[in-house]
C-alpha cells in the first residue's frame, strides 16, 4: 500500500538570496532575470530558475544544479546594480512531501490556510512549523510540496515530518 506521504530530501539545488538595492522595484529585478518577480508571497519560474518572494524586496532564488555556470556569480552578473546576491546553497535543506495526505500533513504544522482555495500552485508560505522557520511552495501537482528549512534544523524537521506522516498510514 502506498504511503500517505513520501518525504524526500532534494539534493544539488543552487539557492541564493536576492535583495533589491535602494530604489529598485520588483519589476526591475524580474526584468533582469527574465520573469515577473513576485511582490507578494508567491513563486514564479522561468527556464529552470524559480524566484520566491520572502520579504519586501527580497527573494529566494532556486535553480537546478545541472545548469552550467558559476553560482551565484552568474545571477549577480545578470542583476548588475539592481540587487545584492548572497549564496545560500549550503544554508537550506529542501524536502519534498508528496502524496494524497501531503497538504493535510503540512496543515498540521502550519497556522496558515493551505486549502487549495487559499494556497494555489503559485503561492508560497513563509511561516513557522513546529517552531521551525519554513518556506513552503507547491512543486507541480496538487499533492506535491517543497519545504525549505535552514540546514541546522533539518534533523528536527525530518523528525516532525516522519512522526506526523506515520499518523496518516
Amino acid at each position, binding site marked *: 500500500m502506498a504511503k500517505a506521504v513520501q518525504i524526500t530530501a532534494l539534493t544539488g539545488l543552487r539557492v541564493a*538570496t536576492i*535583495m533589491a*538595492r*535602494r530604489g529598485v522595484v520588483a519589476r526591475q529585478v524580474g526584468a533582469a532575470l527574465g520573469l515577473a518577480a513576485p511582490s507578494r508571497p508567491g513563486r514564479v519560474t522561468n527556464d529552470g530558475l524559480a524566484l520566491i518572494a520572502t520579504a519586501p524586496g527580497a527573494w529566494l532564488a532556486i535553480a537546478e544544479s545541472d545548469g552550467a555556470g558559476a553560482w551565484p556569480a552568474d545571477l549577480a552578473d545578470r542583476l548588475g546594480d539592481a*540587487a*545584492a546576491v*548572497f*549564496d*545560500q*546553497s*549550503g*544554508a*537550506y535543506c529542501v524536502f519534498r512531501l508528496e502524496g494524497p495526505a501531503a497538504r493535510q500533513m503540512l*496543515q*498540521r*504544522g*502550519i*497556522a*496558515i*490556510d493551505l*486549502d487549495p*482555495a*487559499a494556497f494555489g500552485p503559485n503561492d508560497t508560505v513563509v511561516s513557522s512549523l*513546529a*517552531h*521551525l522557520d519554513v518556506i513552503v511552495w507547491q512543486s507541480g501537482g496538487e499533492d506535491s510540496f517543497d519545504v525549505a528549512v*535552514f*540546514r*541546522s*534544523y533539518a*534533523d*528536527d524537521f525530518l*523528525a*516532525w515530518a516522519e*512522526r*506526523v506522516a*506515520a*499518523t496518516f*498510514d
Partner: protein
Amino acid sequence: MSRLPQGGLIDRSQPLDFSFDGAKLCGFAGDTLASALIANGVALVGRSFKYHRPRGIMTAGPEEPNALVTLGEGARAEPNTRATTIELFDGLSATSQNRWPSLKFDVMAINQVFAPLLVAGFYYKTFMWPERFWERVYEPLIRRAAGLGALSGDPDPDAYDRDHGFCDLLVIGGGPAGLSAALTAGRAGLRVILAEEDVRLGGRLLSEQETIDDQPAQLWVDDAAAELASLANVRVLVRTSVFGAYDGRTYGAVEKLSDHLPSPPQGQPRQRFWKIVAQRTLLATGAIEQPVVFGGNDRPGVMLASAVSTYLNRFAAVPLDPRTGRAVVFTTGDSGWSTAEDLVKAGIEVAAVIDTRPECGALSRDRLAKVGVRILQGAAVTDALGSRLKAVRIRDSAGRDSLIRADLLAISGGWAPSIGLGAHLGRKPVWSQGLQAFVMDQDAANLTAVGSAAGRYSLRHALLDGQREATRIADERGLSQPARRTLRAEAEQLAAPPIRAVERHRTKAFVDFQNDVTDKDIALAVQEGFTSVEHVKRYTTLGMATDQGKTSNINGHALLATAMGRSLGETGTILSRPPHQPISIGVLAGPHRESHFRPTRRTPGHAWAQANGASFVDAGLWKRAQWFLRPGETHWLDTVNREVVAVRTGVGVCDVSTLGKIEVQGPDAAILLDRLYANTMSTLAVGRCRYGVMLREDGFVMDDGTVTRLSEHQFFLTTTTANAARVMQHIEYARQVQWPDLDVSACSQTEQWATFAVAGPKARRLLDAMTLDLDVSDAALPYLAAAETRWRGHALRLFRLSFSGELAYEVSGPADQGEALLTALVDAGRELEVTPYGVEALSVLRIEKGHAAGAELNGRTTAHDLGLGKLLSKAKPFIGREMAARPPLTASDRPRLVGLMPIRPSDPIRSGAHLVAPGFAPTAQNDEGHVTSAAWSPTLNSHIALALLVRGPERHGERIVVHDPLRGADIEAKVTSAVFVDPEGSRLRG
C-alpha cells in the same frame, strides 16, 4: 441491573466489561461510564470536596459536578474525569476519589461534624494561632486535606498532536440548531467546520423523544449526518470540544482521538489540539438544566430531570430499581413534566409531580393523573432525606408539610443557555427578563448564539435559528441558496418562572455541588459585606471549581440578588474563562516536551563529532561538542587538559560554525559598518580582517566579533554565538529604520558556512597537507589576512584569526560540504596528531588569553571596563558613542578586567565569587568586584580567572581575597594581567 429490556441508542450486541472501585461490572457499546454505573445500580460514586458527603450522579452531561472519578491506572490515570463524559470501553477501570479508606466508609466525613466551623471563608479566620503551628501542623494538614483526585506522578506516556482549521463558518454544537446551520451553510457552498463534543451528532435529540416532520428525530439526525459527510466543503469533528474563544476569530478545540480505547494505536496521538480560524461562528451549545436549592439536594438519588430522561431514552438505564423503586418529580417549569411522562412510559412508578407554579401543564397533568400520579401545584420539596435518597419532605400550597417515600427525585429548576464561550472575549452575559436567563451580548458580529444557547428552547426554534443564521452568513458571502421548507417540530417554550431556592428547609441546601457551597455561605458572604458577584465568588468559592459553576452560578447569584433586594439582572453574573471544559496540559504542549520542547540546531560537524566520541552541551538552541573523550580517559578534566595542551603545542580542530555570520553588501556598506562598530571599518583593506566591538545605544558593549573585507563593497562579519540574532536585528534596524537612505543590504550567512578553527603551532603544516590551491605562507597570508579559493569544486575561505592565541586559521566551506571538509582536515592532520577539541578547551584557551566572552560581555560592561577603550574611535560617529562618554561609564573606580591567580595554585577560583581587599570584612560595602570566568590552566599548572575589579589595571601584583560563601572557603589570589599566556602575541604571528 437497572436496564430497560429494549430501547436506547446502546448496542446490546456489544457487551463490555469494566470495573469501578474494583467491582466487576457490565455495560454496552454506546454507554458512558455514568450510564453503565446507573444500569448496574451503582448510586454512590464519590465524596464531596469539603464535607465528604456521599454523592451520586446528578447529570448526564459535561456539566456534572459530583461523579468525578479517576479513569485508568498507572501512568494513564486521569483524575477528576466526569463519568458522564467517559465513553465506556472494554476493560475500562475507574476509581472513586476523595475518600479513605473507602467510598462507603470515608473517615473524612467527620468534616460534616465540623461543618459550622468550615463555612465560607473559614480559612481567613482560622489556623492563625499559635503562629509556630502554621508551618509544621496546619499547613501540612491542609495540604493533605485539600485537592481532589491524585496524579500518578508518572510521565504522560501518550503523544499529542496539533492541527489548524480554517472555515467560513464554525458551528459549535451538533444538536438540532447546529445541524440545521451546518446543512444550510454546507449546501450553500461555504467552508464549514462542525464541532460536537459527544461521540455522535444529535445533541438533545438523542435524549428526548421528539419528532421532526412527524418522524422520530433520530432519523432526521442520521440523514443530516450522512448529508454533511457527503459534502466536501464540510468537516465534521466529533469527540471535539471547543474550549476557548480568542482574539482574531480564533478558537481552541480538543479532539479526543483515542480516549474511548484502552490506549492509542501505535504511532497515533491520544488527543489533538485544534486552532480554528473562523470568519463567522455560531454557538449552538444548547442550554444546561439547573437544580433547585433545597435541603439535601445533593443526596445520591437526586438528579436533574433532563438527565433522568437521557438515561431512560438514550441509554435505557434506570436510576432506581425499576420494579420496586418510586420516583418523584420536582419542577419549576414544563420540562420536568416530560421526564415524568418518560418515567411512566418506562414502567416506573411516579409517586408525585410537584410543580412550584400554581397553574400549569394541562395536557401532561391529565395524562399523568389518569395513571395515578399525584399532582401538587404551588408546592415545593423542602428536603431530600436519607444518605441515599429514601424520602422527600414536601410543602403543599397550603403550607402543610408531609413526607413521600422516594428512591429518585428528578428536579428541574429551569434552563440556562450554555454561553460560556461567549464570555471569553470579555463580554459579560446580559439578563433577559423575557427569557428569565442570562444570554450572550449579541453585539459580537462574529459569534452568534442560536437555539437553546440563545434562550429559544423549542425544537422548532432551534431548527429555524440555525437555518436563518446560516442563510444570513451565506448571503453575506453572496452565496444564496434556494429556500428549503420549514421542518415541523414542537414549538413549546420551556422558560421557567424565577423560583430557584426553597425557603425554610431543615437540612443543608447546596448551591455549588463541586465546591460544597451552601445557601448559608451566600448569606454569610452578604452579611460580611461581600456583595458583588465577583466577591461572592471568591469568598465562598461559588463557581470556582472545574465546572465553573455551570449548575450553580444562576442559583447562587439569585440568592445574592434576593439577599440584597436586587433583581438578578441588576446583580449580574460572572465571566466564564477558557478552558470552558477541563483539558489536559499534554494536548497544549503537543509534541513540544522534554527534548522536543524547543528545536535543536546541529552544526555541519555534528555527525562527525558524535561518531568521534564527543559529549554535547547546549549553547542556546545549538548542540556543541564539549569535549572528545578518548578511550581510557575517566574524568572530563583530563580530556580538556589534553585538548588544551594539544592546541598549545601541536594542532587542534574545533567546530565554530555556530558563530553568527553576516554578509553586508553595497556602496554604503563601509559607512554603515563605521556607524555600527566602535572602531573604524572603512579603512580595512580588501583581504584583511579586523576585530570589532559594537556598543548598544546606551553605551554598553553589545557584542564583539570580526570584520573581513571581501571586496570594496562586500564585508563579512562574525558575531558571538549567543548574539547572532541580536546583532542581525541591530543591523536591520540600523539599515531599514535609522538610515534607510544608505544603499546597503545585509544577509545572515550563519547557516551557509561551516567553519572550523585550525589552531596550534603546527596549524600551517596541516593546511599544507591539504594541498590547497593557495599560498598559505606567512608572507602570503599574514596574521589578520583572508583569502578564498576552490576546494573539490566548492568555495573555501581562510581567515587568519585566532581565539586561542596560537597560530590559527578559520577554515570555511559551504555547510553542505561541512562534514567532508572536517573529515579532510582531520585526515590531513593525522600525521601531526591533530586533536579535535570542544567548547570547554576553547574556553580555557581564551581565558588564558584574556579574551572577553559572554561572561564579560554581560550587558553591564563598557569598552573601558574590558580594556578595549582604545578601540573607541574619536574620528567618527557610531552607535553608543555619546552615551558611552557619560561620566558614570567612564568613572575611574568602575570594576575593570584583570586576571587572578591563586597564591596556592590548587585553590579553585569559581566564577561568581566576589573580591574583597585583604583585611576587610566581606560585606557589600567592601565588595570590589567579581570573578567572571575561571578555569584550570594546564599551560600554567594553576587555576586562573578573569575578573572585574575596581581600578583593576592599576593593582597588578596586589593580593586580593576571593570570597565565595556559597561554595567554599575564602582564598587569596594575586591580581595579574588578564593575558596569562604570550602577552606580546608573538605566537599569533609568523
